[in-house]
């Protein structure tokens, strides 16, 4: 029982090593990103549904839209406020991409932060990059 000092020293090194990521990144938490809206989107003020709803539920809406367009050929969405929308992610000016025309400034901002990687753009054609 004469190794008390070694054990304690070892324990201290171990604890420091294990907690390294925590204190190394202390105070450096990435700020919550705010997706940049295009002028066209800002002008509209409201997306298909209210902002808060879109923030939380946009993936559900996209899922419902996909099912409806692909399987039922029903392509017009009438929102709670009575406005009509063309149900499309990436075709035409009245699609999602028509307003949110920058993937980097809009989709990627939050998706990268949350480490979500939806594979929409392997098939759907993303808007051209130079358009910012």
């Amino acid at each position, binding site marked *: 029982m004469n190794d008390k000092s070694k054990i304690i020293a070892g324990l201290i090194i171990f604890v420091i090593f294990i907690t390294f990521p925590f204190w190394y990144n202390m105070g450096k938490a990435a700020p919550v990103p705010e997706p940049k809206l295009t002028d066209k989107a800002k002008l509209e003020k409201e997306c298909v549904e209210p902002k808060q709803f879109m923030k939380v539920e946009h993936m559900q809406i996209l899922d419902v839209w996909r099912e409806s367009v*692909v399987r039922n*050929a029903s392509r017009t969405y009438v929102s709670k406020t009575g406005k009509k929308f063309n149900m499309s992610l990436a075709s035409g000016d009245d699609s999602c991409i028509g307003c949110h025309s920058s993937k980097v400034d809009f989709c990627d901002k939050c998706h990268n932060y949350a480490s979500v990687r939806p594979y929409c753009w392997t098939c759907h054609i993303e808007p051209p990059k130079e358009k910012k």
Partner: protein
Amino acid sequence: MENSRRSFLKIAGISALGLGTKPVLNVFASGENSEKREAEIQKNPAALKAKRWAMVIDTRKYESEEDLKPIVEACNKIHNIPKHTNKRHEIMWIWFDEFKYVFTNQEHEFVDDRVKHLPFLVLCNHCEKPACVRACPTKATFKRDDGIVLMDFHRCIGCRFCMAACPYGSRSFNFRDPRPFIKEENKEFPTRMKGVVEKCNLCAERLAVGKMPACAEASNGAIVVGDIYDSESEVRKLLKNNYAIRRKPELGAGPAIYYIV
């Protein structure tokens, strides 16, 4: 004693009245709520509808491959179909082939010269009883009520059972990422990705907005698409006045593409 019973009955009566008004209030409350409308999904009123879509190809209206190339090209262009240099990676929605390969069961030694050397357009037959739909384990391929056999590319896992099941070879598999092989992307239509099967969709995306399929539009009247259950439709008139054949009808799949020879 008497007094307390009396007051008890009073309170009970008032309570009963109170409870009785709740449903009434609810009705009023819901009346207010119903002014807030629910979101709903509608069809485009301009969409073309049919009980059962079918196509009639009048093979007398063209003579050579040159006549068919613009038709194939029109389809390839709007559907972002890649042009692979390697034949084995080829993606085809609509293409052409010789009589002996298209109508394998009707070929014989003495087929007349015109038919023998005529290229025949081939595409998905949008079968009445599609084998591909039965084979698909994820229901990525399905048959719509109006007879169009469609694919939900989101759900395709690339198992290729449908390709094995299809008696017409109408399906192609993306062995490679198609993006680099598409010269000019049509922004209105998605591409596919590596590892999914694809085939003709009878231009479902065009029918939904009131346009006829691209091949029919590019064919100068050689291809007619319409409702085969509507006796007044153009396809029915064509079939009534001309003898038409189908590919491998003996298999019982019920193909919906008719060829006037």
